[in-house]
C-alpha cells in the first residue's frame, strides 16, 4: 500500500515525457595535483529534469559540478550543453564559464556583500543588458517567489543564512539559465530550517521548471527533490535511477548502506538458475531472493550478499501466513523512537533489524513469525576496493 502511494508520487513529479538531452557528460576525468577526483563519469540530464548527484563526502560531486560549470578544467572527457560542445579534451575545446549559459547556487551562497539584495539579484539581468524597468519587475517577482521581497533594499550583509540561501536561489532563477547547478545549498542551515527549505525548494522547482543538477550528500534531500539520482562513490558512478528504484533495488552493498537502512546478509548460494529465485543459506534459514537482470556472481567461496531494507520484513502474531521465506522469530530488543519503532529480531538466519510503527507494537521476548517477501531480498554486489 505504502509502496504504491509513493510510486504514484514519483510519477506526479516526472515530466510527462522524458525531454531531449540537455547536458551530456561523457568520460569525465578530473584531477587535483595529479590525484584523481573524478574518474570517468558519464551521464545525461534531460530538459526539465531534476537530477541529483548523491554520495559521501569527497566522492567528487562538487568536482563534477564545477567541471560542468567551467570552474575546473577536466583532464579527459567531453561535456555537451544544448548541442554545443563546451568542453572536449580531445578537440581542445574549453568554453569559459560565462559563455555556458548556466547558473549555480554555491554552498557558501556567494552573496556579494558589497551589494544590496536588489543589486545581487539584478546583477545577472544587468549583464544581459535588460531594461531598468524590466529588471525591477523581474527582481521583485523572483524575490516574492522566495518570500524575500521585504528585504529588497537591505544590504546583503544583514541577511541570515536561510535568507542568503533564498536570495541566492532568486538570483539564479532571475535570468532563465539553461540549467541550474546547486552545490549542497541546504547544508549550511540548521536541521529544522533545512527541512522547511527543502519543501520550499521543491515548490520553487515546480514553479520555474528549470533543469536542475543538485549535489548533496543527504539522501533524504536527494529523494525528496529529484526525478533521478546518480549515486557516486570514489569518483565513479555507482548507480543511476529513479529515487524509489534505487531505494528498492540497490545494486551494491554501498548503495544499500548509503540510502535508507538495510540489513546486509551473507549467504551460501544453494540454488541459482536463470530467471528463477536464488536461494541462499543463511544460518539455518533458506532465503529465496528475487532474480535480477544482471545477477551478481557469487564470490570464490560461493557466497552472495543480499540486502533487506529494515522497513520491508513483516512481523506477524498467530499463524504462519505463507510457506516461502517465513520463519519463527523472537523480538530480542525494542527501541521506541517515537514516529518509528526499531526491533532487533532473532531468526534462524541470525539477527535482523526491522522497522515498525507505534500502531502495532510487539513486546520484547515475544515469539512471532517473520516474513521476508522474496522481491524485498535484493542480491547486491560486494564493494570491491577502488
Amino acid at each position: 500500500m505504502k509502496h504504491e502511494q509513493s510510486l504514484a508520487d514519483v510519477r506526479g513529479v516526472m515530466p510527462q515525457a522524458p525531454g531531449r538531452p540537455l547536458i551530456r557528460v561523457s568520460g569525465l576525468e578530473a584531477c587535483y595535483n595529479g590525484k584523481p577526483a573524478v574518474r570517468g563519469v558519464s551521464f545525461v540530464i534531460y530538459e526539465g529534469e531534476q537530477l541529483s548527484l548523491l554520495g559521501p563526502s569527497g566522492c567528487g560531486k562538487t568536482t563534477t559540478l564545477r567541471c560542468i560549470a567551467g570552474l575546473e578544467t577536466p583532464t579527459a572527457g567531453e561535456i555537451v550543453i544544448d548541442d554545443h560542445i563546451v568542453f572536449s579534451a580531445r578537440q581542445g575545446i574549453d568554453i569559459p564559464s560565462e559563455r555556458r549559459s548556466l547558473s549555480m547556487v554555491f554552498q557558501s551562497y556567494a552573496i556579494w556583500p558589497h551589494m544590496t539584495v536588489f543589486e545581487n539579484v539584478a546583477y545577472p539581468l544587468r549583464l544581459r543588458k535588460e531594461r531598468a524597468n524590466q529588471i525591477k519587475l523581474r527582481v521583485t517577482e523572483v524575490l516574492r517567489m522566495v518570500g524575500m521581497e521585504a528585504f529588497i533594499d537591505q544590504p546583503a550583509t544583514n541577511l541570515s543564512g536561510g535568507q542568503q540561501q533564498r536570495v541566492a536561489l532568486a538570483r539564479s532563477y532571475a535570468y532563465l539559465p539553461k540549467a541550474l547547478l546547486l552545490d549542497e545549498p541546504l547544508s549550511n542551515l540548521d536541521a529544522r530550517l533545512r527541512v522547511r527549505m527543502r519543501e520550499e525548494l521543491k515548490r520553487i522547482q515546480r514553479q520555474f521548471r528549470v533543469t536542475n543538477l543538485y549535489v548533496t550528500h543527504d539522501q533524504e534531500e536527494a529523494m525528496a527533490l529529484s526525478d533521478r539520482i546518480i549515486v557516486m562513490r570514489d569518483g565513479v558512478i555507482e548507480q543511476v535511477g529513479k529515487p524509489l528504484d534505487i531505494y528498492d533495488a540497490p545494486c551494491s552493498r554501498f548503495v544499500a548502506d548509503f540510502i535508507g537502512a538495510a540489513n546486509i546478509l551473507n549467504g551460501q548460494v544453494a540454488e541459482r538458475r536463470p530467471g528463477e529465485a536464488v536461494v541462499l543459506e543463511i544460518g539455518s534459514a533458506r532465503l529465496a531472493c528475487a532474480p535480477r537482470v544482471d545477477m551478481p556472481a557469487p564470490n570464490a567461496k560461493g557466497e552472495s550478499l543480499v540486502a533487506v531494507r529494515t522497513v520491508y520484513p513483516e512481523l506477524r502474531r498467530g499463524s504462519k501466513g505463507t510457506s516461502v521465506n517465513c520463519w519463527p522469530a523472537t523480538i530480542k530488543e525494542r527501541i521506541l523512537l517515537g514516529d518509528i519503532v526499531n526491533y532487533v529480531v532473532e531468526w534462524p538466519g541470525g539477527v535482523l533489524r526491522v522497522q515498525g510503527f507505534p500502531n502495532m507494537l510487539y513486546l520484547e521476548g515475544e515469539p512471532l513469525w517473520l516474513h521476508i517477501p522474496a522481491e524485498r531480498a535484493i542480491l547486491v554486489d560486494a564493494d570491491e576496493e577502488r
Partner: protein
Amino acid sequence: MLRSAHSTSARKPVSLPVLALVATLVLIIGYPLLLLVAMALNVGDAQALLPTHWGLANFIRLLRHLDWIRNTLLVALAGSTFGTALALLLAWIIYRTTVPGRAILELLVTIPYPVGPLVGALAWSELASPRGGLINVLFHAFTGSHASLVNVYSVPGIVFVMAIFEAPVAFLMIGAAMRQMDPSLEECSAVMGAGRLTTALRITAPLMLPAILSAWLFLFISMMGAFAIPTILGTSSRFYVATTAIYMLFQGYPPQYPLAAALGLVLIVFAASAVWLYTRALRGRSYAVVGGRTYRPRPIDMKGLTPLLFAIVCAYIVVALVLPLGILLVASLQRNSNITLSAASWTLHNYRYVLVDFPTTRQAIVNSLLLGVGTGTLGTAFATILAWVIHRSRGAGRGILEQLTMVPQSLPRLIFAAALLWMMLALPFKLYGTLFAVLIAYTIVFLPLAYRSITGVVVQLDRSLEEAGRVLGGGWLSVMRSITVPLLSPGLLAAWVLLFMVSVREVSASIFLAGPGAQVLGPAIFNFWDSGGLPQVSALVIVQTAIIFVALVVIRSVSRKGIAL
C-alpha cells in the same frame, strides 16, 4: 536583591585592569603629545621646556616654509600610491596566477621590509647617485657620455626608494585580504555570465577596496614620517620634508624647538585627517571576517604572459633586495670610497674596524642587540596584556583601550620621539641619554605592530580550550601555564622576533634619544654616513642586515606564516 545585582552587571562597569591600562596609555602617549602642543604654542624662550608666553606665532612662521609641508605631502602621496599599486600587482601575480615558485617569491618579496629604508636609501645612493653611483659609472664607461643615466637624489628618486621599501607591508595586507576572499564570489559572477574584466571591476575591485585603501593609508602615514630616505637622498639638494626640516631645526644653533613642534603638530593633523577620512569612507564596508578561513582560489593561468609576470616579480626582488644588498656588500669590501669591482683589491678590514677597533660602532651593535631583546620582551608582554584584556575580559571601555593602543600608528615616529625627549628632560631624574629612554620610545611606537601581531593569536585561541582546562580543576594560573601559554607561544615568539627586527633597524624613533651614552645601530649608521666613510658604513649596514636575517630565519622556523602584520 537579585534583580539589582543583575542590572549592575548588565551595565558592565569599567573593570580595574581596563582602567589601569587606559591610564597608563594616556600617560605615556597623551602626556608627550600635550608637551608637543605646549611647545608649539611657545612664543617665549625657545629653550624653555614649558612656555613662558603662549601664542600662534610659530604657526605663522611656518607659512614661510610651506614647501616643507608641500614636499612631505607630495612625496607621501606619490610614494604611497606607487607603493600600493606595486604591492597590488605583486600580490595578484603571486596569489592569483599560476606563476612558478610562488612560495619562494612570497618570502623574498617581503624581505625588503625588515631590511629597512635606511639600508635602502644608502644602497640606492651608492647605486644611483648622479656622480659616484655605480649605475652611472658603468653607464659612463660603456657609452663615454658624461650625462648621468639615473639620479636618485631627486623627488622621483625619493618616491621610488620609499615605494619599493614600503611596498612589502602593503603586499602583506593586500595579500591577506586576497586569501580571505571567498573565491566563489568571483566564480558566481563568471557562471552568471560576466567576463573576466567585468568580474574584476564589479566584484573583485570593490571587495578588495577596503584592504587596498588601508594599505595605502598605512604607507601614506608611514611615508609622511619617513626620515632616513629623505635625509640621505634629499638634503644634499636642499629638498626638505617635514621630518628632515624638524631634524635640521633640532640640530641648528640655537635649536628651534617651538617651530619644530609646530611643524610636527601640523603633520600629526594631516595623519589624523587621513585616518578620519579613511574611517568615513569605509564605514560599513569592511567585509573581512576576523580570523576567517583562508581560501585557495583556483589560480588564473595567464598562459603566454606568465614569463612576463614572473619577470616583474623578479625585477622587484632584484631592485629592492639583490642590488641593494649586493652593492653594500661590495662597498663594504673596498679600501676607499671608490668602488672597484675587481676582487683582488678587496679587504675585510672594514668589518674588523666596525666590529672590533672602533668603540662607537662596537657599542652600538651591542646596545642594539640589548634593545632588540628589551623591546621584544617588554613590547610582547605589554601587547599580550592589552590583547588579553581587550579580547578576553568583559568590562566596558575595551573599545577605547584598543583605539588608544593603535594611536602611535598614526604618529610619525620622529615627532613622537621628539615629544618623548621633552617629557624625559622634564623628569626630575636623568633618563635622557640612557638606553632605557630608547627602550621606552621603541616600546610605545611599536605597540600597534605588537598588538596587531598578537591579537590574531589571542583571538584564534578558542576560549573553550581554556574553559575545558578550568573545568578539569585547574586554577587560573595552572590554566595559563599548561594550556594558554603553550598554545600562544609560537605566536608570541613570532611577535617577539618581529619587534626585535624593527628595533634593530629603527632610526626615526632613536635619532633624538640615542646620545653619546647610548649609541644604537640606526643612528650610528646615520651619523657615520653623515661624516663620510662609505666602506665602513656599508660594513656596519651589512652587520645589521645579517642580524636581521638571523631573526628572519628564526621567525620562519617558529611560524609557518613568516612575517605577519
